[in-house]
Protein backbone atom coordinates (compact mmCIF):
# COMPACT_ATOMS: atom_id res chain seq x y z
CA UNK A 1 0.00 0.00 0.00
CA UNK A 2 3.04 2.24 0.10
CA UNK A 3 2.90 2.84 -3.61
CA UNK A 4 -0.75 3.87 -3.67
CA UNK A 5 -0.30 6.09 -0.65
CA UNK A 6 2.85 7.56 -2.14
CA UNK A 7 1.22 8.34 -5.41
CA UNK A 8 -1.58 10.22 -3.67
CA UNK A 9 0.95 12.63 -2.31
CA UNK A 10 3.18 12.84 -5.32
CA UNK A 11 4.08 16.28 -6.55
CA UNK A 12 1.89 15.77 -9.57
CA UNK A 13 -1.06 14.78 -7.45
CA UNK A 14 -0.55 17.73 -5.13
CA UNK A 15 -0.42 20.16 -8.00
CA UNK A 16 -3.46 18.63 -9.55
CA UNK A 17 -5.30 18.84 -6.26
CA UNK A 18 -4.08 22.40 -5.76
CA UNK A 19 -3.57 21.76 -2.06
CA UNK A 20 -0.52 20.81 -0.02
CA UNK A 21 -1.61 19.08 3.15
CA UNK A 22 0.78 19.82 5.98
CA UNK A 23 0.84 18.37 9.48
CA UNK A 24 1.81 21.04 12.00
CA UNK A 25 1.68 21.73 15.70
CA UNK A 26 -1.02 24.01 17.00
CA UNK A 27 0.02 24.79 20.54
CA UNK A 28 3.71 25.33 20.32
CA UNK A 29 4.77 28.93 20.08
CA UNK A 30 6.86 30.03 18.34
CA UNK A 31 7.11 27.06 15.97
CA UNK A 32 3.56 26.12 15.27
CA UNK A 33 0.68 27.78 17.08
CA UNK A 34 -2.53 29.71 16.67
CA UNK A 35 -2.76 33.36 17.61
CA UNK A 36 -5.71 35.05 19.24
CA UNK A 37 -7.27 35.79 15.88
CA UNK A 38 -7.27 32.16 14.98
CA UNK A 39 -4.39 32.38 12.52
CA UNK A 40 -1.75 29.69 12.40
CA UNK A 41 1.70 31.08 12.89
CA UNK A 42 5.27 30.10 13.59
CA UNK A 43 8.57 29.09 12.14
CA UNK A 44 7.24 25.83 10.69
CA UNK A 45 4.14 27.50 9.35
CA UNK A 46 6.07 30.10 7.44
CA UNK A 47 8.06 27.33 5.84
CA UNK A 48 4.92 25.41 5.00
CA UNK A 49 3.31 28.40 3.32
CA UNK A 50 6.43 29.09 1.38
CA UNK A 51 6.63 25.52 0.13
CA UNK A 52 3.01 25.60 -0.93
CA UNK A 53 3.58 28.84 -2.73
CA UNK A 54 6.59 27.43 -4.56
CA UNK A 55 4.50 24.43 -5.55
CA UNK A 56 1.84 26.78 -6.81
CA UNK A 57 -0.81 25.38 -4.46
CA UNK A 58 -2.59 26.33 -1.28
CA UNK A 59 -1.52 25.00 2.09
CA UNK A 60 -4.00 23.13 4.23
CA UNK A 61 -3.10 22.28 7.80
CA UNK A 62 -3.75 19.31 9.98
CA UNK A 63 -2.96 19.87 13.62
CA UNK A 64 -1.05 17.00 15.21
CA UNK A 65 0.58 16.07 18.46
CA UNK A 66 4.05 14.61 18.63
CA UNK A 67 2.87 11.04 18.98
CA UNK A 68 0.70 10.91 15.90
CA UNK A 69 2.97 12.46 13.34
CA UNK A 70 4.00 9.12 11.85
CA UNK A 71 0.46 7.78 11.75
CA UNK A 72 -0.68 10.96 10.09
CA UNK A 73 1.70 10.33 7.24
CA UNK A 74 1.09 6.63 7.03
CA UNK A 75 -2.64 7.01 6.88
CA UNK A 76 -2.39 9.74 4.25
CA UNK A 77 -3.78 12.46 6.42
CA UNK A 78 -1.05 14.81 5.26
CA UNK A 79 1.48 14.97 2.44
CA UNK A 80 4.24 16.29 4.60
CA UNK A 81 5.04 16.81 8.25
CA UNK A 82 6.49 20.17 9.26
CA UNK A 83 6.06 19.75 12.97
CA UNK A 84 9.50 20.12 14.40
CA UNK A 85 10.18 16.56 13.48
CA UNK A 86 13.60 15.44 14.71
CA UNK A 87 15.46 13.01 12.48
CA UNK A 88 16.33 9.79 14.29
CA UNK A 89 17.46 6.39 13.02
CA UNK A 90 14.22 4.77 14.20
CA UNK A 91 12.07 7.34 12.47
CA UNK A 92 13.99 6.97 9.26
CA UNK A 93 12.64 3.46 9.06
CA UNK A 94 9.03 4.61 9.07
CA UNK A 95 9.20 7.91 7.20
CA UNK A 96 11.45 9.60 4.68
CA UNK A 97 13.18 12.74 5.88
CA UNK A 98 14.24 15.47 3.54
CA UNK A 99 17.18 17.80 4.06
CA UNK A 100 17.13 19.25 7.58
CA UNK A 101 16.31 22.92 8.17
CA UNK A 102 17.00 23.28 11.88
CA UNK A 103 19.35 22.19 14.66
CA UNK A 104 18.08 20.89 17.93
CA UNK A 105 18.94 19.08 21.08
CA UNK A 106 17.03 18.01 24.14
CA UNK A 107 17.08 20.39 27.08
CA UNK A 108 15.65 20.35 30.58
CA UNK A 109 13.87 23.13 32.42
CA UNK A 110 13.34 23.44 36.13
CA UNK A 111 12.15 26.11 38.52
CA UNK A 112 14.74 28.76 39.22
CA UNK A 113 14.42 28.18 42.93
CA UNK A 114 15.20 24.48 42.56
CA UNK A 115 17.33 24.37 39.47
CA UNK A 116 18.57 21.19 37.93
CA UNK A 117 21.76 21.74 36.12
CA UNK A 118 23.10 18.31 35.44
CA UNK A 119 21.69 14.94 34.62
CA UNK A 120 22.66 13.25 37.89
CA UNK A 121 20.30 15.51 39.77
CA UNK A 122 17.41 13.98 37.86
CA UNK A 123 17.97 10.53 39.29
CA UNK A 124 14.68 9.17 40.70
CA UNK A 125 12.97 12.49 40.15
CA UNK A 126 9.78 13.00 38.17
CA UNK A 127 10.30 14.45 34.72
CA UNK A 128 7.58 15.66 32.39
CA UNK A 129 7.80 14.75 28.72
CA UNK A 130 5.56 14.89 25.72
CA UNK A 131 4.52 11.51 24.31
CA UNK A 132 6.31 10.59 21.12
CA UNK A 133 9.18 13.06 21.37
CA UNK A 134 12.91 12.58 21.31
CA UNK A 135 13.01 13.68 24.91
CA UNK A 136 10.75 10.83 25.89
CA UNK A 137 12.79 8.38 23.89
CA UNK A 138 15.99 9.55 25.49
CA UNK A 139 14.79 9.10 29.05
CA UNK A 140 12.94 5.88 28.34
CA UNK A 141 16.12 4.31 27.05
CA UNK A 142 18.25 5.74 29.78
CA UNK A 143 15.90 4.93 32.67
CA UNK A 144 16.46 6.09 36.21
CA UNK A 145 13.81 8.81 36.19
CA UNK A 146 10.09 8.70 36.63
CA UNK A 147 8.35 10.00 33.49
CA UNK A 148 5.04 11.82 33.40
CA UNK A 149 3.80 11.67 29.82
CA UNK A 150 1.39 14.09 28.16
CA UNK A 151 -0.30 14.29 24.80
CA UNK A 152 0.22 17.93 24.06
CA UNK A 153 2.34 20.93 24.86
CA UNK A 154 -0.51 22.71 26.58
CA UNK A 155 -0.89 19.82 28.93
CA UNK A 156 2.77 19.35 29.70
CA UNK A 157 3.51 23.02 30.33
CA UNK A 158 0.45 23.36 32.53
CA UNK A 159 1.65 20.37 34.46
CA UNK A 160 5.08 21.83 35.15
CA UNK A 161 3.50 25.11 36.20
CA UNK A 162 1.32 23.16 38.59
CA UNK A 163 4.54 21.72 40.00
CA UNK A 164 3.74 18.17 39.16
CA UNK A 165 7.38 17.34 38.51
CA UNK A 166 10.92 18.49 39.23
CA UNK A 167 11.70 19.16 35.61
CA UNK A 168 10.45 19.04 32.04
CA UNK A 169 12.47 17.75 29.12
CA UNK A 170 11.86 18.78 25.55
CA UNK A 171 13.62 20.35 22.59
CA UNK A 172 15.84 23.12 23.91
CA UNK A 173 14.64 25.33 21.08
CA UNK A 174 11.15 25.65 22.59
CA UNK A 175 12.38 25.73 26.09
CA UNK A 176 14.37 28.91 25.48
CA UNK A 177 11.25 30.59 24.25
CA UNK A 178 9.13 29.25 27.02
CA UNK A 179 11.39 30.34 29.88
CA UNK A 180 11.48 33.80 28.47
CA UNK A 181 7.76 34.00 28.94
CA UNK A 182 7.92 32.16 32.24
CA UNK A 183 10.86 33.74 33.98
CA UNK A 184 10.60 31.73 37.15
CA UNK A 185 11.95 28.75 35.22
CA UNK A 186 15.34 28.16 33.73
CA UNK A 187 16.78 25.88 31.08
CA UNK A 188 19.11 24.28 33.63
CA UNK A 189 20.43 21.69 31.20
CA UNK A 190 20.84 23.07 27.70
CA UNK A 191 22.01 19.93 25.92
CA UNK A 192 21.54 16.35 26.80
CA UNK A 193 22.01 13.47 24.41
CA UNK A 194 23.14 13.93 20.84
CA UNK A 195 22.85 17.04 18.70
CA UNK A 196 20.16 16.44 16.15
CA UNK A 197 18.39 17.95 13.16
CA UNK A 198 14.86 18.76 12.28
CA UNK A 199 13.65 18.03 8.79
CA UNK A 200 10.48 17.78 6.74
CA UNK A 201 9.16 14.24 6.55
CA UNK A 202 7.09 12.54 3.88
CA UNK A 203 5.53 9.13 3.67
CA UNK A 204 8.00 6.35 3.17
CA UNK A 205 8.53 5.80 -0.54
CA UNK A 206 7.15 9.13 -1.70
CA UNK A 207 10.19 9.83 -3.75
CA UNK A 208 8.70 12.53 -5.87
CA UNK A 209 7.80 14.81 -2.98
CA UNK A 210 11.00 13.92 -1.15
CA UNK A 211 13.14 14.99 -4.08
CA UNK A 212 11.19 18.16 -4.58
CA UNK A 213 11.48 19.02 -0.89
CA UNK A 214 15.21 18.43 -0.86
CA UNK A 215 15.63 20.86 -3.70
CA UNK A 216 13.33 23.32 -2.05
CA UNK A 217 15.19 23.28 1.26
CA UNK A 218 18.48 23.70 -0.52
CA UNK A 219 17.07 26.59 -2.48
CA UNK A 220 15.54 28.24 0.57
CA UNK A 221 18.72 27.82 2.60
CA UNK A 222 20.67 29.48 -0.15
CA UNK A 223 18.21 32.30 -0.37
CA UNK A 224 18.55 32.89 3.38
CA UNK A 225 14.88 32.15 3.92
CA UNK A 226 15.49 30.48 7.27
CA UNK A 227 17.35 33.44 8.67
CA UNK A 228 14.45 35.66 7.74
CA UNK A 229 12.08 33.13 9.18
CA UNK A 230 14.15 33.10 12.36
CA UNK A 231 14.12 36.84 12.68
CA UNK A 232 10.42 37.16 12.09
CA UNK A 233 9.05 34.27 14.05
CA UNK A 234 11.58 33.22 16.65
CA UNK A 235 13.72 36.12 17.65
CA UNK A 236 11.05 38.01 19.57
CA UNK A 237 10.53 34.94 21.68
CA UNK A 238 14.12 34.24 22.60
CA UNK A 239 16.40 35.76 25.18
CA UNK A 240 19.84 37.04 24.46
CA UNK A 241 21.48 33.69 25.08
CA UNK A 242 20.19 32.31 21.77
CA UNK A 243 21.87 33.12 18.49
CA UNK A 244 20.53 32.37 15.01
CA UNK A 245 23.33 29.89 14.49
CA UNK A 246 22.03 27.82 17.40
CA UNK A 247 18.93 27.09 15.35
CA UNK A 248 19.37 27.78 11.71
CA UNK A 249 21.48 25.62 9.42
CA UNK A 250 23.60 26.99 6.68
Amino acid sequence: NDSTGGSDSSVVAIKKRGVLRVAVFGDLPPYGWVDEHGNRRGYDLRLARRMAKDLGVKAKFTQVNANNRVDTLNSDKADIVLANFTVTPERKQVADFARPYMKVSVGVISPKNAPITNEHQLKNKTVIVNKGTTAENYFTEKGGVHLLKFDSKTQQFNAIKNKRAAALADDNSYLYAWVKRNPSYTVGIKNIGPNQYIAPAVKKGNKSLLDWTNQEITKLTNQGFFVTDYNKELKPYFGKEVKPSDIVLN
Partner: protein
Amino acid sequence: MNWQVISHSLPIFAQAFKLTLWLSFVGILGSLIVGALSSLIQYFKVPILSQLFTAYVELARNTPLLIQLFFLYYAFPVIGLKMSATTCGIIGLIFLGGAYMAEGFTGGFSGVNQTQIDNGKALGMNNLQLARYVVFPQGFALSMPALAANVIFLIKETSIFSVIAIPELTNTALDLIGMYYRSNEYLFVLVVAYAIILIPIILLLNLLERRVRYGTFGD
Protein backbone atom coordinates in the same frame (compact mmCIF):
# COMPACT_ATOMS: atom_id res chain seq x y z
CA MET B 1 1.37 -7.77 12.45
CA ASN B 2 4.67 -8.43 14.14
CA TRP B 3 4.33 -10.85 17.04
CA GLN B 4 7.71 -10.05 18.43
CA VAL B 5 6.74 -6.42 18.87
CA ILE B 6 3.64 -7.58 20.63
CA SER B 7 5.37 -9.95 22.99
CA HIS B 8 7.96 -7.31 23.87
CA SER B 9 5.26 -4.88 24.82
CA LEU B 10 3.35 -7.31 27.00
CA PRO B 11 5.10 -6.54 30.31
CA ILE B 12 4.35 -2.84 29.87
CA PHE B 13 0.74 -3.56 28.98
CA ALA B 14 0.44 -5.90 31.97
CA GLN B 15 1.38 -3.00 34.20
CA ALA B 16 -1.22 -0.79 32.56
CA PHE B 17 -3.79 -3.56 32.70
CA LYS B 18 -3.43 -3.81 36.44
CA LEU B 19 -3.72 -0.08 36.81
CA THR B 20 -6.86 0.08 34.66
CA LEU B 21 -8.44 -2.68 36.71
CA TRP B 22 -7.55 -1.02 39.96
CA LEU B 23 -8.80 2.41 38.91
CA SER B 24 -12.01 0.92 37.55
CA PHE B 25 -12.60 -1.04 40.70
CA VAL B 26 -12.15 1.92 43.01
CA GLY B 27 -14.13 4.18 40.70
CA ILE B 28 -17.05 1.79 40.39
CA LEU B 29 -17.16 1.04 44.09
CA GLY B 30 -17.15 4.75 44.90
CA SER B 31 -19.77 5.43 42.24
CA LEU B 32 -22.07 2.79 43.68
CA ILE B 33 -21.80 4.28 47.14
CA VAL B 34 -22.30 7.86 45.99
CA GLY B 35 -25.07 6.76 43.62
CA ALA B 36 -27.01 4.75 46.19
CA LEU B 37 -26.71 7.49 48.75
CA SER B 38 -27.76 10.22 46.38
CA SER B 39 -30.64 8.19 45.03
CA LEU B 40 -32.02 7.34 48.48
CA ILE B 41 -31.76 10.98 49.50
CA GLN B 42 -33.70 11.95 46.41
CA TYR B 43 -36.19 9.14 46.90
CA PHE B 44 -37.13 10.24 50.38
CA LYS B 45 -36.96 13.90 49.39
CA VAL B 46 -34.67 14.83 52.29
CA PRO B 47 -34.95 18.63 52.36
CA ILE B 48 -32.03 20.67 50.96
CA LEU B 49 -29.79 17.62 50.54
CA SER B 50 -32.08 16.24 47.88
CA GLN B 51 -31.99 19.46 45.83
CA LEU B 52 -28.22 19.52 46.22
CA PHE B 53 -27.84 16.00 44.97
CA THR B 54 -30.23 16.60 42.08
CA ALA B 55 -28.08 19.51 40.96
CA TYR B 56 -24.97 17.36 41.29
CA VAL B 57 -26.44 14.53 39.24
CA GLU B 58 -27.45 16.86 36.43
CA LEU B 59 -24.12 18.64 36.38
CA ALA B 60 -22.11 15.44 36.32
CA ARG B 61 -24.24 13.62 33.81
CA ASN B 62 -24.38 16.42 31.30
CA THR B 63 -20.70 17.24 30.96
CA PRO B 64 -17.93 15.12 29.45
CA LEU B 65 -15.49 13.31 31.72
CA LEU B 66 -12.63 14.70 29.67
CA ILE B 67 -13.43 18.26 30.56
CA GLN B 68 -14.17 17.29 34.15
CA LEU B 69 -10.69 15.82 34.37
CA PHE B 70 -9.06 18.78 32.64
CA PHE B 71 -10.72 20.96 35.15
CA LEU B 72 -9.64 18.91 38.14
CA TYR B 73 -6.12 18.35 36.97
CA TYR B 74 -5.11 21.49 35.10
CA ALA B 75 -7.48 24.19 36.30
CA PHE B 76 -7.91 23.51 39.99
CA PRO B 77 -4.23 24.07 40.83
CA VAL B 78 -4.63 27.58 39.48
CA ILE B 79 -6.94 28.28 42.41
CA GLY B 80 -4.64 26.42 44.74
CA LEU B 81 -6.10 22.94 44.81
CA LYS B 82 -3.63 20.37 43.60
CA MET B 83 -4.21 16.65 43.57
CA SER B 84 -2.23 13.82 42.02
CA ALA B 85 -3.29 12.51 38.64
CA THR B 86 -4.59 9.30 40.16
CA THR B 87 -6.61 11.19 42.73
CA CYS B 88 -8.05 13.44 40.03
CA GLY B 89 -8.86 10.43 37.90
CA ILE B 90 -10.64 8.60 40.66
CA ILE B 91 -12.50 11.67 41.86
CA GLY B 92 -13.52 12.43 38.29
CA LEU B 93 -14.69 8.90 37.67
CA ILE B 94 -16.67 8.80 40.89
CA PHE B 95 -18.12 12.25 40.19
CA LEU B 96 -19.36 11.04 36.83
CA GLY B 97 -20.15 7.48 37.83
CA GLY B 98 -21.98 8.47 41.01
CA ALA B 99 -24.44 10.45 38.93
CA TYR B 100 -24.97 7.61 36.47
CA MET B 101 -25.38 5.10 39.27
CA ALA B 102 -27.80 7.45 41.03
CA GLU B 103 -29.97 7.47 37.91
CA GLY B 104 -29.76 3.70 37.74
CA PHE B 105 -30.83 3.31 41.35
CA THR B 106 -33.57 5.89 40.98
CA GLY B 107 -34.95 4.00 38.01
CA GLY B 108 -35.01 0.84 40.09
CA PHE B 109 -36.49 2.47 43.16
CA SER B 110 -39.24 4.12 41.20
CA GLY B 111 -39.98 0.73 39.67
CA VAL B 112 -40.89 -0.59 43.09
CA ASN B 113 -44.65 -0.78 43.08
CA GLN B 114 -46.50 1.81 45.08
CA THR B 115 -48.57 -1.06 46.40
CA GLN B 116 -45.44 -2.62 47.87
CA ILE B 117 -44.77 0.56 49.75
CA ASP B 118 -48.40 0.80 50.86
CA ASN B 119 -48.10 -2.72 52.17
CA GLY B 120 -44.96 -1.88 54.07
CA LYS B 121 -46.64 1.16 55.57
CA ALA B 122 -49.75 -0.80 56.40
CA LEU B 123 -47.50 -3.14 58.38
CA GLY B 124 -46.39 -0.19 60.47
CA MET B 125 -42.90 0.37 59.02
CA ASN B 126 -41.24 3.76 59.30
CA ASN B 127 -39.32 5.38 56.43
CA LEU B 128 -36.02 3.85 57.39
CA GLN B 129 -37.52 0.39 57.64
CA LEU B 130 -39.28 0.90 54.32
CA ALA B 131 -35.99 1.85 52.71
CA ARG B 132 -34.13 -1.02 54.31
CA TYR B 133 -36.62 -3.85 53.81
CA VAL B 134 -38.78 -2.85 50.86
CA VAL B 135 -37.42 -0.12 48.60
CA PHE B 136 -33.75 -1.02 48.60
CA PRO B 137 -33.83 -4.79 48.14
CA GLN B 138 -36.49 -4.69 45.44
CA GLY B 139 -35.20 -1.53 43.79
CA PHE B 140 -31.68 -2.88 43.70
CA ALA B 141 -32.76 -5.93 41.77
CA LEU B 142 -34.68 -3.74 39.35
CA SER B 143 -31.73 -1.41 38.84
CA MET B 144 -29.31 -4.23 38.04
CA PRO B 145 -29.47 -3.86 34.24
CA ALA B 146 -28.83 -0.13 34.41
CA LEU B 147 -26.06 -0.53 36.96
CA ALA B 148 -24.49 -3.23 34.84
CA ALA B 149 -24.46 -0.99 31.79
CA ASN B 150 -22.86 1.71 33.94
CA VAL B 151 -20.13 -0.63 35.12
CA ILE B 152 -19.11 -1.33 31.54
CA PHE B 153 -19.39 2.33 30.65
CA LEU B 154 -17.17 3.40 33.55
CA ILE B 155 -14.47 0.85 32.79
CA LYS B 156 -14.28 2.21 29.27
CA GLU B 157 -14.23 5.77 30.53
CA THR B 158 -10.89 5.09 32.25
CA SER B 159 -9.41 5.35 28.75
CA ILE B 160 -9.87 9.09 29.06
CA PHE B 161 -7.42 9.14 31.97
CA SER B 162 -4.72 9.25 29.33
CA VAL B 163 -5.26 13.01 29.07
CA ILE B 164 -4.00 13.50 32.59
CA ALA B 165 -0.95 11.30 32.17
CA ILE B 166 -2.19 8.27 34.05
CA PRO B 167 -0.44 5.32 32.43
CA GLU B 168 -3.52 3.13 32.01
CA LEU B 169 -4.11 0.95 28.95
CA THR B 170 -5.04 3.53 26.34
CA ASN B 171 -2.36 5.93 27.41
CA THR B 172 0.22 3.18 27.28
CA ALA B 173 -0.79 2.13 23.80
CA LEU B 174 -0.77 5.66 22.44
CA ASP B 175 2.59 6.27 24.08
CA LEU B 176 4.15 3.15 22.61
CA ILE B 177 2.80 4.15 19.20
CA GLY B 178 4.41 7.54 19.60
CA MET B 179 7.74 6.00 20.46
CA TYR B 180 7.90 2.96 18.20
CA TYR B 181 5.32 3.65 15.46
CA ARG B 182 3.78 0.16 15.59
CA SER B 183 0.15 1.26 15.57
CA ASN B 184 -1.38 -2.00 14.34
CA GLU B 185 0.32 -4.10 16.94
CA TYR B 186 -0.25 -1.84 19.90
CA LEU B 187 -3.88 -1.09 19.08
CA PHE B 188 -4.45 -4.80 18.67
CA VAL B 189 -3.05 -5.52 22.11
CA LEU B 190 -5.11 -2.65 23.48
CA VAL B 191 -8.40 -3.96 22.08
CA VAL B 192 -7.60 -7.45 23.30
CA ALA B 193 -6.84 -6.10 26.75
CA TYR B 194 -10.21 -4.35 26.94
CA ALA B 195 -11.89 -7.49 25.66
CA ILE B 196 -10.23 -9.53 28.39
CA ILE B 197 -11.56 -7.17 31.02
CA LEU B 198 -14.99 -6.57 29.56
CA ILE B 199 -16.13 -9.85 28.03
CA PRO B 200 -16.28 -11.75 31.32
CA ILE B 201 -18.04 -8.79 32.89
CA ILE B 202 -20.55 -8.58 30.06
CA LEU B 203 -21.24 -12.30 30.33
CA LEU B 204 -21.60 -12.15 34.08
CA LEU B 205 -23.89 -9.18 33.94
CA ASN B 206 -26.01 -10.77 31.21
CA LEU B 207 -26.47 -13.71 33.50
CA LEU B 208 -27.42 -11.51 36.42
CA GLU B 209 -29.78 -9.51 34.27
CA ARG B 210 -31.53 -12.62 33.09
CA ARG B 211 -31.97 -13.79 36.67
CA VAL B 212 -33.46 -10.46 37.58
CA ARG B 213 -35.75 -10.46 34.59
CA TYR B 214 -37.10 -13.89 35.41
CA GLY B 215 -37.47 -12.92 39.01
CA THR B 216 -35.08 -15.50 40.41
CA PHE B 217 -32.93 -12.90 42.08
CA GLY B 218 -32.55 -13.55 45.76
CA ASP B 219 -32.50 -17.36 45.55
